[in-house]
């Protein structure tokens, strides 16, 4: 699971959960998959992401020095930051780990790089 995906997912499906974001991420095993830097894509992606979620991801990945507390206004001209974001959001791949619902503590496992967000019948 990429950390950009982490920024998209919630546990809203659980009965009674209102926001379910950000989930608490734990990484047990990760991979770094180098991929082509596409500044336009990152620029277009940023407005769709939640900045606090990006910061959390950076923390868990041990990259908090790379990511400023606030999204700078002129990010499009800041290639260095765009590259760091590219690395954080698209190159780090969580292979094993878990996502935990902030409201109920329900844990969603990530195995073999794929998060399992399915719920049991008594949870929906």
């Amino acid at each position, binding site marked *: *699971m*990429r950390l*950009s*995906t982490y*920024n*998209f*997912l*919630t546990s*809203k*499906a659980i*009965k009674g959960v209102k926001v379910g*974001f950000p989930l608490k991420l734990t990484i047990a095993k990760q991979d770094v998959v180098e*991929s*082509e830097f*596409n500044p*336009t*894509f990152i620029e*277009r*992606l940023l407005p*769709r992401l*939640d900045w606090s979620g990006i910061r959390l991801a950076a923390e868990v990945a041990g990259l908090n020095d790379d990511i400023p507390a606030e999204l700078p206004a002129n990010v499009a001209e800041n290639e260095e930051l765009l590259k760091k974001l590219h690395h954080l959001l*698209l190159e780090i791949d969580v292979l094993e780990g878990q996502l935990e619902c902030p409201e109920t503590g329900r844990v969603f496992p990530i*195995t*073999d*790089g*794929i*998060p*399992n*967000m*399915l*719920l*049991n*019948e*008594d*949870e*929906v």
Partner: protein
Amino acid sequence: MTNSWKKYILWFAQEHLDFRVAEFNSIIKLFGLKHRKLNDNTLVRSLNIIYKFLISFDKQKPFWIVEFANEESAIKFASRSVSLRSIYELWGHSNNLKSFHEKLQDSIKTKENLMDPYIQKSFKIVVETYNKHISQKEKVEKIETLEYLPFQGEVDLKTPQTEWCYIEFYGLDPTAVPSEPDDILFGRLVANGQRDLIKELSLKKRKFIGNTSMDAQLSLLMVNQALVNNGDLVLDPFVGTGSLLVSAAKFGGYVLGADIDFMMLHGRSRPSRITQKVRERDERVRANLEQYGCGDRYIDVIISDFSNPLWRQGVEFDAIITDPPYGIRESTEKVESKTTSKQNTRSKDMPHYPSTSHYSLQQLYVDLLQFSAHHLKVGGRLVCWLPYHRDDYTSEMIPQHSSLVLVGNSEQPLSGLTSRRLLTYEKRDINAPDSAQLSYQLSNSYDFRDRYFNNAPESRTERRMRKAEQREIGRIEALKRGKVIIDNKEAKNNLNKSRFQ
């Protein structure tokens, strides 16, 4: 781009005719191409095509004449169209041979400066007699009728600098081939369409496929309908083996998928190739993208049930393309809240697969349109298939949503009396998608699976295949519940117990 309006011959493959106009319009929109539709005679009547011809038979014709503002536009169009074989700059056209030659000679004279760049180039002339087979000798004779062409370069059949095409169109009915062609056209090859991509992405050579993988051509058509372009974020919420995402990534999309089927996404479902006993270790959606050099644009697949919310508010996709389950070759299902009686048969360490209930097509479409209204960018598109029984079709069947405009609706007949339509919706520029009204006229009792199994007259082969599919469904469902199937009898029992009765 400078404008120098010219006419072009668009030669389409005679396949998926009902998708042509929709694809044309989509590509024009994708690139913002300027074009004019001509209607000065019969063939070109098919150009009215673009908006009017849906009821006439002209849309069937493989040759259209379209005027583009410049050659780059024509090339761009060809760079995306999968329906298009080739595009030619038009030099001569008529509906009878005599006037064709007069007109062509005339335009060579009057547009001398336009012909100049090609006169010294090596060249080749291809002869195409549509709907009529002729010998090599006759082809040469046809070329000889064009002896007035001013070409001075060498004939080069392998790698000509310019390629010309002489076309005689003998209608579409192979049982009534006219003695004289209905249309004669001559043009210079400008570009080829994307027919080769269909072969390149063929499922035959695809790493990871399943029973319901979408063939390459239709996947590519869907992606064109969805206006997918470089750097777009694309979602398939019923991703399966990711065949739609392969095409999306091929055209520059960054792709995400979701599916309820754990075994499928982990590549552990039963292989669907007869020749294959077990799946290879890395059979995944991701491997499919890597196979075609699009690995960089794979984002993720997620195991989740579409009937439950998953995505954060504010997540916006450029396109949503999907082939939802029809309940025939795969089950339509969702996690349901109910108490199961089987709890005690399960040991603790066994993976738990929640019990699922039938997810009606009606509810699924309601969810899909609602979801798209919320999560598409303005101008973004939802492209999805709707299956139905042909006897039942009325335009009211098409699901509607006030935030989404239906911009494409193309039919693909399936077997017997069943059919499906590729629907394309575009998100409107309005501020309050929450106030949207959803009307979906399929009656509550409309059940495609039911209609498919109970009312469609079937041939013997269809029946045999259907039975095999049912058995497979029963087997998969049993496996999903953690059962080990020992013999065929048990499989049979499972089938009987399953809901396809």
